[in-house]
């Protein structure tokens, strides 16, 4: 089945101007986290926030609405959010932790819930998983190379980065867009065995693919995710549209095309590496 198991799929756009002003697309992650915090569903969230180095994210434990909003927006490089989960449970003494992450980070959180080898009294504190659509990621040096050598702007001058419509674009002191295929060689190779574009194991997953600018495609996948989203919609957090409004080749047709591409690439990568006699992750292709 395309997009993994899910309960509902919809197009969403946050209404809160504080969120839409800073969000990458529809502001779904930021809004739903703020709402979950308000409602007591969570008491904190693991997020990729800004660090002192331009566009190098660092994992943070956010416990206020302000901290959640401050971490909004996509950073196209690695933020090891799972590395902060022990700190969230111990130092911050959180009981209901939300994890926001790429599909691979959701894999990690889910595996930790079932096989918590070194996570004493931590995995049971995971209250919500919010997955972000992901095609692949860059190392920090890879991202910097794309921006400084290909887009030819200093990384610190950039205020927003986007991938869409076949382009990698940066906005800031100077707006530049380059063909996405120029960036492919800087993708981290560990992404190429991954079959999951839509965060198939999150409670809620969301991303820009399939919806117009300023909107996000959003799946609810578990009862927990679905109930929270229903309450958030009833509370008027989002403008909502049916995905059927976006006809092929946009909408779910586009998402499915990219997803199939990612799954095929993963199968091929795993087969190639196995043929070379290299270890690949059991279970990663499904």
């Amino acid at each position, binding site marked *: 089945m395309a997009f993994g198991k899910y309960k509902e799929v919809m197009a969403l756009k946050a209404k809160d101007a504080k969120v839409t002003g800073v969000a990458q697309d529809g502001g779904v992650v930021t809004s739903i986290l703020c709402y979950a915090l308000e409602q007591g569903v969570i008491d904190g969230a693991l997020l990729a926030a800004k660090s002192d180095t331009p566009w190098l994210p660092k994992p943070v434990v956010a416990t206020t609405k302000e901290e959640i909003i401050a971490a909004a927006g996509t950073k196209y490089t690695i933020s*090891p959010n799972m590395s902060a989960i022990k700190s969230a449970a111990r130092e911050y003494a959180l009981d209901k932790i939300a994890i926001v992450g790429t599909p691979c980070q959701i894999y990690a959180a889910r595996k930790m819930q079932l096989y918590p080898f070194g996570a004493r009294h931590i995995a049971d504190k995971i209250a919500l998983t919010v997955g972000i659509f992901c095609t692949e990621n860059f*190392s920090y040096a890879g991202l910097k190379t794309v921006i400084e050598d290909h887009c030819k702007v200093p990384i610190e001058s950039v205020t927003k980065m986007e991938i869409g419509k076949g382009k990698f674009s940066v906005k800031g002191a100077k707006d530049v867009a380059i063909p996405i295929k120029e960036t492919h060689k800087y993708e981290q190779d560990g992404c190429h065995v991954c079959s999951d574009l839509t965060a198939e194991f999150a409670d809620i997953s969301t991303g820009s693919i399939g919806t117009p600018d300023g909107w996000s495609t959003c799946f609810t996948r578990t009862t927990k995710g679905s109930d929270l989203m229903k309450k958030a919609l009833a509370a008027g957090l989002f403008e909502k549209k049916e995905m059927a409004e976006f006809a092929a080749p946009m909408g779910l047709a586009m998402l499915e095309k990219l997803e199939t591409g990612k799954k095929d690439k993963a199968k091929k990568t795993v087969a190639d590496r196995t043929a070379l006699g290299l*270890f690949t992750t059991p279970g990663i292709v499904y």
Partner: protein
Amino acid sequence: MAKPKIAYVHLSGCTGCLVSLADTYEKLLDILGAVDMVYNLTLADARDLPEGKIDISIVEGAVCLQDKHSVQLIKEAREKSGLVIALGGCAATGCVCNFSRGGQANQPQHESFVPINRLIKVDAYIPGCPPAPEVIYNFCIAAVTGDTQYLAPFMAQNVGGYHCGCDLQVNVVQNSLCMGCGTCASSCPTRAIEMEFGRPSFNNIRCVKCGACTAACPRMFLPVAEIQKKLMV
């Protein structure tokens, strides 16, 4: 159905794994209620392994090669048991016992402490120092209920044997499988792993070689069917 006969064999370990088993709070009663604990120096009143067959021996601690009693005990446990489980780093990977060089009071001749698979065949490994209470609980319940799908990763050779942070470097980073999630860092009991630019960076002096990071890494094994069945509801 008769309850499985369980022996808890304590070799050279700190009892932390048994404490972790007990740290499941009231769930400990689920485990104790589901089994017949025939031997456990700390929890049961029996000095020796019982006569006859045992279903499962759970082994905590490394085996000291200079201690004849330990060598004999682990051999005897293997002979009598249907399954032998290496619980925790010392039994599974050698853990901190890997560093022993002997020459310490009050048994200075006790020099070498090795993971139990150096002497016997091991059926399943639960790495970690100690393994988290929840993973011990999940393992025990799966073993009693025959949940073989859940148990499969514990049976794989690559979670047992000598392990340290370097195994992540060799198996995951060198095979370009790492994507920088940071699970290894939060799984490390000694905080020997820090994430630097999206990759684990090991402090070799801190690493106790418990194997938790390697076992926890979602790129070492990914239990997709288990996640779908147990969590996506």
